[in-house]
């Protein structure tokens, strides 16, 4: 010891004793042994605290020596405390096992670009868990998401509260995220729902209403986030085999083949995890004969995910997937005289002979790398880079079309909790899209954005304010700026929670909408490079409440959207041409109501969801005129499940009222959609089997003009998990 130190020790012996410290480290796990991420570990009566990393590990340094009380707490778990005697200049290991709190609101990550309890979110969020997806034995993601409250799919186009309508795949007013990374196509702006195998998805979060304040373009009507399965500890494997068949037409006069159409596929996943590395790979294929003439489809895919812990607070995640499809194109059903019509005005299971032989090859994939770091209890950040590639060729009698597109993206985001009552999220995002196509041309689009959102707790209320500014440039031209603010509030009142929000959303026109140059039904479609972003303001007031010890949960929301400059295809009479133009002002207002009852009666759980939608075009900016096309006024889903030991049975009913208006074929017959699904499941050890009878009553209907909706299909899925 130096002379100076000896002198200090002599002068301030008590001070030196106070500086004696040790290290406390360990892990926070749940009752199944999995690490709890972002759990808070603190010392009672002290400001010392830290957060666990993704494996649940934590480390507290400079802990005063002597007896202390250590507490671990995490969203969704009951906090635990432990009395510890910290030895000076030594480390002490303290592990915690947290028990999940029953009936607590789930944790979501999409609404605020960070972990939040569902009841703290200012907008409406619908959740689909992996158990709900497995129960339905679905083959693709869109089949799973289609059953979420307030969501409706029209030939692959997602509608959240009627946002998108049907625009033949060009442009989507819903943003798709895969683990938080934007995945809308670079050229058409649409969504490839078969990008990922359904089996890879653990949870789906659907955020309703304008989400551009955090997510920018395309989040005009909402955001769908596919959250993939985490890689567990040790070695695991999973094999899922699915097989089934389609019902034939319910009327002999519609018969179109002499055999039963079948569908089948297999997915294999293997994973291994031990810190600092964990990884998973998956591969799969499936074939479907389809339920109509010229409806065969073959699909192949590979996907992978890797995680590497660089240090206790830093993690690198790399994931990617590639999917290839070859499918025939049943563009529209056959009208009298255009096939073997058997004296019928139309044949819904057959196609127009002029389209026979048309087929498409579609390849798509993505690659993402994310570095996330929690350097202190108050600050965390992540940086990501992503690449999405789509490539299609339409093989047609009239001439082939092709398109190759890329979308490169990057984001830097930080979350700051400077005060227990305050959370701030800030970030910047860039995206660069390019397309090479015979119908869209060769073009590029660049997007640059900065955003920030703060949440402040004020008594029982949480106030949220934020905004994002996006700059868009097409083909290296001038920048167009769009500002998207959002205000929100959540107020806990007794057993209920009130929420309100007001936000602005926008969607930049896709490169396809700007530059498309092709022919449809012999009519030329011409480009409009001057298209401007479409915009909408969305307001929402909602209330969530629990009854009967929270076994019954009710959530109701009133929403109101005022949209302007909506991009729609317009037929120009004088030129006999079609062009996408900023045309309509529209109003979409209504009510979202959902009710879930868990264990209300022994072994029985049920959910009910209803959406009332008033969707009108506005003439002279304010006067409602005709209905917006392809929007149902009523959308209803009913789900009931009965569990009996290892077995379960259930039924689901979905009703969508007849569209008040459709485009192009106004006089074609159309009806309400009333679809009943039946399902059963059985689990024993590593084996699980699920039976699904979708559209059990073989109800014949159409949502998109001259396109038959899926008929009855019986599917069995068997999953073996190691």
């Amino acid at each position: 010891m130096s002379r100076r130190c000896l002198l200090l020790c002599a002068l301030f012996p008590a001070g030196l004793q106070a500086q004696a410290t040790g290290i406390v480290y360990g892990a926070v796990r749940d009752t199944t042994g999995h690490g709890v991420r972002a759990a808070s570990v603190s010392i009672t009566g002290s400001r010392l605290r830290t957060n666990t990393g993704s494996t649940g590990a934590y480390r507290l340094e400079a802990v005063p020596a002597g007896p202390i009380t250590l507490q671990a707490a995490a969203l969704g778990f009951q906090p635990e405390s432990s009395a510890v005697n910290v030895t000076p200049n030594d480390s002490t290991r303290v592990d915690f096992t947290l028990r999940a709190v029953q009936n607590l609101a789930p944790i979501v990550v999409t609404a605020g670009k960070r972990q939040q309890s569902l009841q703290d979110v200012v907008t409406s969020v619908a959740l689909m868990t992996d158990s709900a997806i497995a129960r339905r034995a679905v083959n693709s993601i869109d089949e799973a998401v289609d059953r979420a409250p307030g969501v409706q799919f029209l030939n692959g186009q997602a509608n959240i509260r009627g946002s998108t309508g049907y625009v033949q795949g060009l442009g989507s007013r819903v943003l798709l995220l895969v683990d938080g990374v934007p995945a809308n196509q670079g050229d058409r702006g649409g969504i490839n729902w078969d990008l990922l195998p359904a089996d890879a998805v653990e949870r789906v979060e659907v955020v309703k209403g304008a989400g551009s304040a955090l997510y920018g373009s395309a989040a005009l009507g909402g955001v769908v986030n596919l959250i993939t399965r985490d890689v567990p500890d040790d070695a695991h494997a999973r094999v899922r085999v699915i097989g089934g068949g389609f019902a034939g037409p319910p009327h002999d006069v519609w018969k179109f083949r002499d055999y039963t159409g079948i569908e089948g596929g297999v997915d294999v996943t293997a994973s291994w995890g031990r810190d600092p590395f964990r990884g998973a790979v998956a591969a799969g294929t499936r074939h479907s004969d389809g339920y109509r003439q010229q409806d065969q489809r073959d699909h192949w895919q590979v996907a992978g995910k890797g995680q590497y812990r660089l240090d206790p607070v830093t993690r690198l995640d790399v994931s990617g997937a590639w999917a290839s499809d070859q499918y025939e194109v049943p563009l529209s059903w056959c009208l009298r005289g255009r096939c073997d019509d058997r004296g019928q005005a139309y044949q819904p299971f057959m196609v127009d002979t002029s389209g026979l032989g048309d087929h498409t090859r579609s390849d798509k994939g993505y690659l993402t790398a994310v570095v996330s770091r929690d350097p202190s209890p108050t600050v965390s950040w992540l940086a990501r880079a992503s690449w999405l590639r789509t490539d299609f060729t339409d093989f047609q009698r009239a001439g082939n079309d092709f398109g190759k597109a890329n979308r490169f993206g990057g984001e830097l985001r930080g979350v700051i909790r400077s005060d227990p009552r305050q959370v701030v999220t800030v970030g910047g995002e860039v995206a660069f899209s390019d397309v090479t196509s015979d119908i869209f041309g060769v073009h590029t689009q660049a997007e640059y954005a900065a955003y920030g959102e703060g949440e402040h707790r004020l008594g029982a209320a949480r106030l949220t304010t934020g905004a994002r500014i996006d700059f868009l440039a097409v083909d290296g031209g001038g920048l167009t700026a769009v500002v998207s603010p959002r205000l929100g509030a959540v107020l806990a009142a007794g057993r209920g929670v009130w929420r309100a929000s007001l936000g602005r959303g926008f969607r930049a026109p896709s490169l396809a909408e700007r530059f498309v140059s092709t022919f449809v039904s012999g009519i030329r479609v011409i480009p409009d490079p001057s298209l401007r972003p479409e915009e909408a303001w969305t307001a929402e007031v909602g209330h969530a409440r629990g009854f009967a010890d929270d076994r019954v949960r009710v959530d109701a929301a009133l929403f109101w959207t005022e949209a302007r400059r909506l991009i729609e295809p317009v037929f120009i009479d004088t030129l006999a041409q079609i062009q996408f133009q900023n045309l309509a002002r529209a109003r979409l207002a209504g009510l979202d109501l959902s009710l879930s009852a868990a264990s209300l009666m022994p072994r029985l759980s049920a959910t009910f969801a209803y959406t009332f939608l008033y969707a009108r075009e506005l003439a002279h900016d304010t006067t409602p005129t005709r209905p917006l096309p392809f929007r149902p006024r009523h959308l209803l889903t009913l789900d009931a499940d009965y569990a009996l030991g290892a077995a379960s049975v259930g039924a689901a009913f979905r009703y969508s009222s007849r569209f008040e208006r459709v485009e192009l074929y106004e006089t074609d017959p159309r009806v309400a959609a009333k679809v009943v699904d039946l399902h059963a499941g059985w689990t024993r050890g590593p084996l699980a089997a699920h039976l699904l009878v979708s559209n059990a009553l073989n109800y014949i209907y159409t949502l998109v003009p001259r396109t038959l909706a899926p008929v009855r299909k019986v599917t069995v899925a068997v999953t073996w998990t190691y």
Partner: protein
Amino acid sequence: MRLCVAALAALVVACNGGLGPAPAPTSCPKNFTGICGTVKIRGAIPDSTDVVYLVAYHTFPQSRGDLFNFVPFPPPTVSLVDTTYFYTLPLPNGRYEWVLAVWKKQGPMLTIGNADSLLREAGYYKRSDADTSRFGAGIVVVNSIGTDSIDFVVDFTNMHPVSFYFPAVTVRR
């Protein structure tokens, strides 16, 4: 259990009423707005036939540019399987001076530039076989109902290209 059976029965009843077979019409359907009638096919169908459209014009086209001011869009087509075809042509309310069948030849995509080589007038309501260049007698009025018996002949032996009417711009009534 009774409740479940009752619920299931209610569901089955509720799910009745989907789309069903619809025999080819022989008169205007109920709640239909537009015109209906029979097209008689005369002459051999050319091998180069792509499709025959049915269209209507509020006023007779005064120039080539006006040719694309037709309704409805997209236009329905005529089945050429039999020698007679009952058509339904949905139209907005109004007065129509020209209801006709347009023959389209197989070939490249249609533009105003190649319309003359790809399109032919193949017959129209109240065409006089004695003088196929005369028109104007076949005025139709649509008033929120389906107007029946707008019958005419598609004559593949007597079709007229765009240049038959334009630039021969003389309007004869």
